[in-house]
């Protein structure tokens, strides 16, 4: 697998998404929310990269800006459809070119209730991408839809039903079937299993893994549930206030976290084993507002080991070897 990963499928560099803040009678621009502020990561073929962090850290915005569902403010995203293909910068494509590229790049949303149109049968919802792209029509389209339903573990007969007739887990399967319709290479899973009950969540996670094996899919898995992330990911990027503070192989992040924020985040997961009630590294206070992030290292206001220099400058990313890196002054 390492050879396949040597040329990443997607290379994101310095991705930024700033939202303007307007105020006053003239709606003058008075500042911006730096929701994503210089994020870089790679995703290899058949690889799962998880982006984790607390609400407001920018993980969802990063995923959507990558697919240009919201226009990024800056940065680049080099995409190679095959390992030998010349890279294209997704952010430089015209709207139309981007639309064609979305055959390869799909997304599954968190809320299986909000992401399906209640007036459209699930068969039509799944078939829509195929019809829009002119790939299949008529009975061929119907066959493809049935095949997709079977693929995600639903009976083909349900194609004529409406979303309200399905449970949350089943709707999420419909969302997955729709994302798979155009045979994508990468799927952004934005909190795709967060709304599901634990036994149903396990079914959907297994399904995602099976589909990855079958179609060599890459996933960008955006989540806040770290136990799911540990299970599903090859690599993990931890975000805090718009920036990646630590990234590495899943094992490195969970067994040997280096950034104080990662350590605190991991210690906060309640362990489902009462004999190991966790040693909590307390994080006081809340995540600061991204409108006005603290100077220096964004995390210093909640960090137990912050020093003078942490208040002054943002730490460079420190390479810890074997693909593991973290942005903390105390590591350099």
């Amino acid at each position, binding site marked *: 697998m390492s050879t396949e990963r040597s040329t990443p499928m997607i290379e994101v560099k310095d991705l930024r998404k700033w939202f303007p803040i307007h105020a006053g009678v003239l709606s003058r621009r008075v500042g911006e929310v730096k929701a994503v502020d210089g994020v870089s990561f790679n995703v290899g073929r058949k690889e799962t990269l998880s982006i984790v962090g607390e609400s407001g850290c920018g993980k969802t915005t990063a995923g959507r800006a990558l697919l240009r569902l919201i226009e990024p403010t800056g940065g680049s995203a080099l995409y190679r459809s095959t390992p030998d293909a010349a890279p294209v910068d997704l952010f430089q494509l015209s709207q139309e070119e981007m639309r064609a590229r979305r055959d390869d790049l799909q997304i599954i949303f968190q809320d299986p209730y909000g992401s399906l149109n209640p007036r459209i049968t699930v068969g039509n919802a799944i078939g829509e991408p195929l019809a829009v792209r002119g790939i299949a029509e008529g009975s061929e389209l119907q066959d493809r839809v049935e095949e997709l339903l079977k693929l995600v573990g639903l009976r083909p007969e349900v194609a004529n039903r409406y979303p309200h007739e399905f449970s949350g887990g089943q709707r999420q399967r419909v969302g997955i079937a729709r994302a798979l319709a155009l045979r994508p290479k990468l799927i952004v899973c934005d909190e795709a299993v967060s709304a599901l009950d634990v036994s*149903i969540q396990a079914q959907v996670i297994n399904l995602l*893994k099976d589909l990855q094996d079958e179609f060599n899919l890459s996933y960008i898995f955006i989540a806040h549930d770290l136990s799911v992330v*540990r299970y599903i990911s090859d690599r993990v990027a931890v975000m805090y206030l718009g920036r990646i503070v630590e990234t590495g192989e899943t094992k490195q992040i969970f067994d040997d976290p280096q950034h104080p924020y990662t350590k*605190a*985040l991991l210690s*906060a*997961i309640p362990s489902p084993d*009462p004999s190991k009630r966790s040693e909590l590294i307390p994080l006081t206070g809340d995540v600061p507002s991204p409108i006005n992030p603290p100077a220096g290292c964004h995390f210093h206001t909640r960090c137990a080991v912050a020093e003078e220099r942490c208040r002054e400058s943002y730490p460079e990313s420190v390479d810890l070897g074997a693909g593991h890196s973290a942005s903390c002054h105390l590591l350099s």
Partner: protein
Amino acid sequence: MSQDQRTESAPGGAASEGEREALLQIEGLRTWFHTEEGIAKAVDGVTYTVRKGETLGVVGESGCGKSVTALSVMQLVPTPPGKFEGGRILFRGEDLLEKDLEEMQKIRGNDIAMIFQEPMSALNPVYTVGDQIMETVMLHQGLDKVAARERAIEMLKRVGIPSPEQRVDEYPHQLSGGMRQRVMIAIAMACDPALLIADEPTTALDVTIQAQILNLMRELQEQEGMSMLLITHDLGVVAETAHHVAVMYAGKVVEYSEVNELFARPHHPYTIGLFRSLPDLASEGERLNTIPGIVPSAFNFPSGCRFRTRCPIATERCAAEEPPLVPLEEGAEHTVACHHLKEALEL
């Protein structure tokens, strides 16, 4: 898990401390909803006990009736369509279902307080947080305005809100999610209740804030000797917080035990399946165990054992006969409702 382990196991709870006195005993409670589509038996024969100074964790998936049971204790179930069809809710030995509205109003807030999942919708946006704490203590404890304001500031301080003298005059929208949940706890604790019912208190919060709130709840419990009924779908939260656990499925308790005992030796096929589907406990590369199918609808539960439609070891007996919730062995605290305990242990 083998048969031997089961027989040699001394009930963990009895080993850790002597039996504590019961504060809340729910016995065979049935709360049904009569709707146009039929009768939804949301709570259909629930039995569990909350002891003094202890936390009972109630776990289960959406729709298993865990929240409706709690709302029944507070008598906050809208009637109609809700109706209590049977059972008793004994609080300090008195049946709450026999209390009239006025008596219940005295108990709510004073003796039993409740916090909810969504702190934003549970707080009134047009009143300051101070007003909302003051309202509680003025109503229940008859304090005047000045004393109530002092009490409000004191409560905010106790739940760890920085600069409480200023925060007391702020509105809910000025606070973060974690701070709002602290305010909810301050309101609930303002009258020193004997029992705090917390319905998914940390589900809407980020994990670092969740850890802060759970810590706070544990500390307050230790200081006050209060009992807690903690309703959650998160087995990790239960493992860290509860002394005893009731596992609910389709309107019933299927297993009840001391927490260490339950996590070490789950007996009901549903509990076993639930634990196995946790990604935390799966080793690397291993497929997650899943419970096939979905939770049955409350309008139409299967006959006999309600889990049988998803159970790997169900037999004809399970369809014909409903298994009672019985102790694992004579006098054991650990109770399970399953016809096939021996087979379940081999799962």
